[in-house]
Structure formats: C-alpha cells, structure tokens
C-alpha cells in the first residue's frame, strides 16, 4: 500500500475512494493521511468516515459528493467544522463543496468512464441544487421532447477500489453491493485495487461474469486483509457499526479526533499493525457465518 499511494496519489489530485457503505478502502485513506498528502479534491457519493478523517487530517481542499453523513448514525462532524463558518477553527478555511444527488454522482462517473461530454438524467427539476452548482445544466433533446438535466464527466486522477479478490494482474471480482466501483475505476486516470485476497488467475477465469474491473485498467494491486474496516466486505467481515457510532462521539471534539488519528493512523505503520492493535479476537466477532452462492456451470467447449 505504501508504494501504491506514493506512486499514484499526489498533492492536488482528485481522488475517488469509492464503495457504497460496502468495500470502502480505509486502509488507503489512512496511508494517504500518513503520507501527508495535501490539497486533494475528494470525490465520493457518500464521504463517510474515511473522508471525515482525511479532512480532519488536513488532506482535503474540496469535496465532491451527494450525501454527507454518518450512515445510520448522523453527521460527519469534522467535515461540518470545515463547512459551517461558526464552527470553523482559527486559521482554517471552508472546504470547497461541489454537490450532486446520488444519480448525478453515478452519472458523472458513467460519463467519465464512457468518455461522454455529459450524462443525461431526470432529476433536479425545481430543486435549488442547480442554482448552487452551475455544473448541473440542461440539455435539449434532439427529438423535440424538451429539455432534460445533465451532469459533466468526472475523471478522477486516481480511483481506489476495495473488493473481495483479484489475481496478480489486477482482474478484480466482487459481490454484494457494487456501488459505482466499476464506473469510478474506468473513469479514473489511475486505479489502485485493494483486495482481501489475491487468487490465482484460474479462480477469476472460472467465473468471468463475476469480474467487475479488468487488470487492463488497474495500475496497482494491493493485498490488504481487513483493509475496509470499519466498513465491511460481503462474506468476509461485518460492518463495525459500534465504531461508526463511536466516531460520532470522537469526531464531535477536534482534540479527540486528533488524538484518535495519532493513535490509530499516525501511530501505526500500516494496516497490518492497525489490525494487530485491535487483536484477532476483535475481528472474529465481526466474521459472519457462511452463506454460499452455489456454483453454476459455464461448460467446457472444445
């Protein structure tokens, strides 16, 4: 991970650590914090705790998003301290905000991935969102049936995608919530794939419909067990809802937040140490029972 971040994430980059609740690469976010990247534009549908932590650590100058909260819990307090003037600390400046709806954010990645100048969608009519975001515009249908709304392509400098498994070439397979992992990866200039398990290519080739991102678009593959914690990985470990709740308390206080970063991010060299610090028993409690998909037959055609 250290090498992947050093090589592919630079100050001032637009970074998309995607994954909708599921498969959020906290390991990559923490390494970016440790490497003290600055002036990043952070894009995510749901900034979640990882961007709250990266903002608290001073990595970000701008946020591009569609829903800014702690899912199931409440607010992202570190980000609120950088968006509400009354809460702004001395010497701090407000974060730049570029805001869409979920469909709009998905559409931005799709347009970027398909090399389209815009993505048309049915949203935003009579909403105030276009008035505060001039990038949300209308486009005239060439079939005489009026106007529809559009969002521009988003092509991050780097997309960071967590998944269950990949082979050495970076052919990524995932199941469970797919979010916009595929679209973000194809839209990005560089892609870091972080996986729970590196598997032989034969495992990938046994089920080609399960592949969401081909090695073709992947620049670095990182093997990082529990790399998505406190987010989760379907079939591997559960979402650490207790920590999501705990973060609500920690993040309300700037000093407590800084102390947490010192202990759990700066204080550990890498994700392996982070996992060890929790202790194996901690993750055992987050491990689900088995629910196998069953196997299908592709047929051997000679």
């Amino acid at each position: 991970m250290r090498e992947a971040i050093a090589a592919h994430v630079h100050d001032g980059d637009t970074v998309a650590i995607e994954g909708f609740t599921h498969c959020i690469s906290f390991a990559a976010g923490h390494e970016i914090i440790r490497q003290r990247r600055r002036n990043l534009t952070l894009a995510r549908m749901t900034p979640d705790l990882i961007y709250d932590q990266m903002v608290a650590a001073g990595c970000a100058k701008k946020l591009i998003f569609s829903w800014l909260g702690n899912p199931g819990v409440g607010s992202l307090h570190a980000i609120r301290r950088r968006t509400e003037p009354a809460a702004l600390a001395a010497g701090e400046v407000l974060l730049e905000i570029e805001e869409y709806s979920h469909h709009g954010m998905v559409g931005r990645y799709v347009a970027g991935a398909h090399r389209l100048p815009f993505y048309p969608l049915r949203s935003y009519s009579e909403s105030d969102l276009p008035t505060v975001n001039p990038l949300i515009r209308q486009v005239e249908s060439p079939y005489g049936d009026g106007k529809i709304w559009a969002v521009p392509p988003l092509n991050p400098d780097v997309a960071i995608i967590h998944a269950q498994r990949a082979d050495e070439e970076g052919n990524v397979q995932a199941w469970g919530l797919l979010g916009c992992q595929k679209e973000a990866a194809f839209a990005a200039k560089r892609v870091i794939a972080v996986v729970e398990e590196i598997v032989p290519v034969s495992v990938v080739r046994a089920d080609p419909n399960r592949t969401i991102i081909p090695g073709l678009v992947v620049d670095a593959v990182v093997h990082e067990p529990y790399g998505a914690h406190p987010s989760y990985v379907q079939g591997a470990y559960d979402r650490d809802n207790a920590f999501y709740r705990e973060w609500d308390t920690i993040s309300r206080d700037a000093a407590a937040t800084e102390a947490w970063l010192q202990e759990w991010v700066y204080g550990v060299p890498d994700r392996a140490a982070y996992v060890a610090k929790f202790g194996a028993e901690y993750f055992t409690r987050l491990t689900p029972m088995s629910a196998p998909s069953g196997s299908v037959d592709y047929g051997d055609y000679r």
Partner: protein
Amino acid sequence: MSETKPASRNELMVVAAARALQGKRVCFVGVGLPNIAVNLAKRTVAPQMELVYEAGVFGAKPSRLPLSIGDPTIVTGSIATVSMHDLFGLYLQGGRIDVGFLGGAQIDKYGNLNTTVIGDYAAPKTRLPGSGGACEIAINAKEIMVIMRQSTRSFVKELDFRTSPGHLGGAVDAAALRREQGWGGSGPSVVVTDLAVYGFDADGEMSLRSIHPGATLDEVKGSIGWELRVPAEVPETPAPTVEELRLIREELDPTGAYV
C-alpha cells in the same frame, strides 16, 4: 394476554405510515422509521409489497434490523443486488417504483423538502447531509410519502433550501411542469407525523386528514409554521391494534432503537 402499554407518538407515526401503504406494490425504502413502517406494512396491510433499497438491493430479506442503508444483511438472501447505475437508472428513473419515502429537516405546505442546509448555502448555520437520492426519488417515484416529526422548526413557511420538489406552487402548475419535464411521479400524497396525518388538496396544498389519539388540534396547529388548512371534520387517527404494537415492540424494533 397481558395489558398492552399504550402507543407512543413514534409508534402512532409508524403505524399510520404503515397503513398508508395498503395495496402498494413496489416501495423505495430508507433506514430508520420508514424501514420499520414498511416492514410493519408487509406484515399487515401490504404483504405483497416488494422493497427496493437505495443501496442497490431488490427483494431484500434482512435477518436483522439494518443500521445503515448498505448493511450486508439486506444483500444476503435478496432477489437481486445491482449497481447504483442500474438502481437509479433502471429501477427508479425507469419508473418501477410506486412509493418513495422521504423525510427532511424542513417541509413547506406544498411538500417541498429541505435536507441540505439550515441558513445560507454558502455559509450554513447547519450543514445537513444533502440530497442523496431524495431529489430523484421526489421526481421519479410514482408517489411520495413523508414521515417526519413536526415542529415550527421543521414545518416552515419558507424553506432555507429546496432539495426535493413537492407540489411546487400548487398542483396546477406542478402537474403541468411534471408533464412537460417528463417527471415520473405525481409528488407527495401523504405526510405522517408524530401528531397527525396530512394529505394534499387538489391545488397541492397540505391539509389535515386526521389527528392521532392523545394529540389536540391546537397542538397540531401550534407546531406548524403556516396557517394550516383544516377541514370542517377532522377524525381521530384509528388507534394501533394490539398486534401492530406487538410487531413493532417484539419483532421490528425490539431494542427500541428507532421507535
């Protein structure tokens, strides 16, 4: 059977919302109170109803109460788990959703909702989560139901920000706008609060439909920031049945996390 503890106001809200789902087929659902209302409806007035979760899940069969909209328990055992592009494009915008549930920090008398900011957008007093899928749900779900607690802070004359459109300047213009802009839905139909149930008149303005047991008309009017439209006859919301309360207390929210 032991005496049943009387219904709390949250329980009254959840039961009223569940009953409003009678006969609905496909419901776009979020977590929290809407999730409990929907699951109560499935066990009572709408057994055939199919649930679509914003996270990309159709036909979920959660074996525990999900904390977040993207909990792994809604994926395992679901009928279909799809990308966000498919969820918002094929299912929602494609016109497959009968009912969408929305809430918000502020609502006005036309059912417009604010989930973005309190105060000025550029320098907000309170920064709220924003739209998420709310804006496109408001436009594309065939019908919108709103669940939120009412107070003069949430039921306001003027929204600080209009995140999701309702009946706009009244149903007449709204209907025309919806046609010409190709909206999939007809906007908000029901608002359920901890005190009462509201509908919308032909002109798109919110109007009182029933008052929950234990609440008074003064209390209702006193917690709304505009001159509420009140019909001559206002019935009382039918009280929850023992079975509805049992389902909420024993099956849907045993720890009382939400209700």
